[in-house]
């Protein structure tokens, strides 16, 4: 692909459509996304890759919201300091959110961008949906 492109040939890919993976409330109000594979992605992505991404995201959110000794300790400590400790300390949840955004960036670079897709971090959509933007297929001639 060592062709030179003139300015006329350079095209900016347009957004073809967006797919939204909704939340799965089957286990209550915990953050969890549906693993149902959207039909619009069938031509672009393997079901297995999609499953793996969503499952990893679900596991990371479960880790953030995990109820256990550590989170209770953090809560009690915060209560004793009249919650002023949250002003200086990063919560466990925030740390995991950073991990999640790194994971999404990584997935975008390795798997989704080469296929003309873009994952949006759910936190930017209020943890309501995982938004997958489908960009136009720029292969010769045909398009969506």
């Amino acid at each position: 692909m060592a062709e030179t492109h003139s300015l006329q040939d350079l095209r900016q890919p347009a957004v073809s459509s967006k797919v939204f993976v909704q939340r799965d409330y089957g286990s209550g109000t915990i953050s969890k996304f549906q693993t149902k594979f959207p039909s619009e992605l069938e031509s672009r992505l393997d079901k297995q890759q999609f499953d793996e991404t969503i499952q990893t995201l679900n596991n990371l959110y479960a880790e953030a919201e995990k109820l256990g000794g550590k989170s209770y300790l953090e809560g009690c400590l915060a209560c004793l300091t009249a919650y002023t400790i949250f002003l200086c300390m990063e919560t466990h949840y925030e740390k995991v959110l950073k991990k999640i955004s790194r994971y999404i960036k990584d997935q975008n670079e390795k798997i989704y961008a080469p296929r003309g897709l873009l994952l949006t971090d759910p936190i930017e959509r209020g943890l309501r949906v995982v938004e997958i933007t489908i960009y136009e297929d720029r292969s010769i001639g045909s398009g969506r």
Partner: protein
Amino acid sequence: MKNCEYQQIDPRALSVSPMSAQNRAEMKAQRSRRKWEVFPGKNRFFCDGRIIVARQSGVLPLTLGLIVVTCGLFFAFDCPFLVEHLTVFIPVIGGVLFLFAVISLLRTSFTDPGILPRATPEEAADIEKQIDTSGSSTYRPPPRTKEILINQQVVKLKYCFTCKMFRPPRTSHCSLCDNCVERFDHHCPWVGNCVGKRNYRFFYSFIISLSFLTSFIFGCVVTHITLRSQEGKSLIQAIQESPASVVELVICFFSIWSILGLSGFHTYLVASNLTTNEDIKGSWSSKRCTEESGNPYSYNNIITNCCVTLCGPMPPSLIDRRGFVPLVEASPAASATEIELPPFLAKNDSNMCTRSTKDVLARMVHAFDSRGLCPPGTPKTTPVGVEVSSSPSAGCPLFSRSSRKRDSLHSSNPAFRLASPSPSLSRNTMILGEGPDVGFIPIP
């Protein structure tokens, strides 16, 4: 699986093109705004978005005033006597309780209760598309409820017409603040804010510490007056010597009933993992449900319920008040991505192969906004070219309410921006491919 061919675009070639230089100049001319400045709900923000309160602050000044005045009188008039006659720990305990109560109150008032950001236009259109499966192009309001199973119990999710989404379980729309709030308890006028998922623990510690504080002050004042009248004086004389104590007595007496009652009620709610909203509506009462009654969110263990509600992990604020609103030409993705773009563009072509994909994506989302017109849910019968030159709300009846709120086409609210094409951008000669494979064809 078809292998998609992605043409690598040289970002340097793009950056020298005249139209993007113009865009960049326009971009710099617009001051970057923070998201709190364009927040659609009825809230007020202070300290550049760090502090959030409801628009109607209710009687928060009164609450604060009462607490400060009562404690002030207590420390000034009762403590000297009691320190002399009893112990020095009395003002110490009083001080600790006072600080705890005030800090909890301020935290409750100034914390985001768990506001859900409104759905983006594409999301709203997607939801409508999912419901409207008949393929009719006429606009129909989506059905109001959706039933889901939570822990084998049927729960109805309602559609919020303001926020354009199905409300998650336990979420309710507060009409005073005009926001959907997660795990909505109630809107408290004393605190001047909604009480929801994120600030319920602050609210609970406020009412508990206030109960202790009022009981403590009440007890101390009664002790003070009793001790004074025991020193050979009558009760009337004792009161005349210390009139402030009477004021404190009256305030404490009237507030103790309500505060203690409220504390007891909320302790019950915490132990059964209920919200005030659910309790009042009787959502999970045994009278309503026929076979399977009971709260699907409860862990059926008082201690677990308490721990989860009060000591659970602190969820983050979903509205990102201090984030920057992406500018009209800029990427609709996170502002973090925006910040990363200049270094990528500056890199030389030694890293072209690995970087180009990212640059491509960056450029794509840059260009996305110029094409971010009506989402797929709009009528398919209208010719594509018409959509560009039409007014923002034509063909997008869903967003007429939002368009009313935003006068200019250059709306910087990311939720509604995409529905309004910028006229300056549509005039740019977008070099698009030949006919059928393009989504939108601008009119030159």
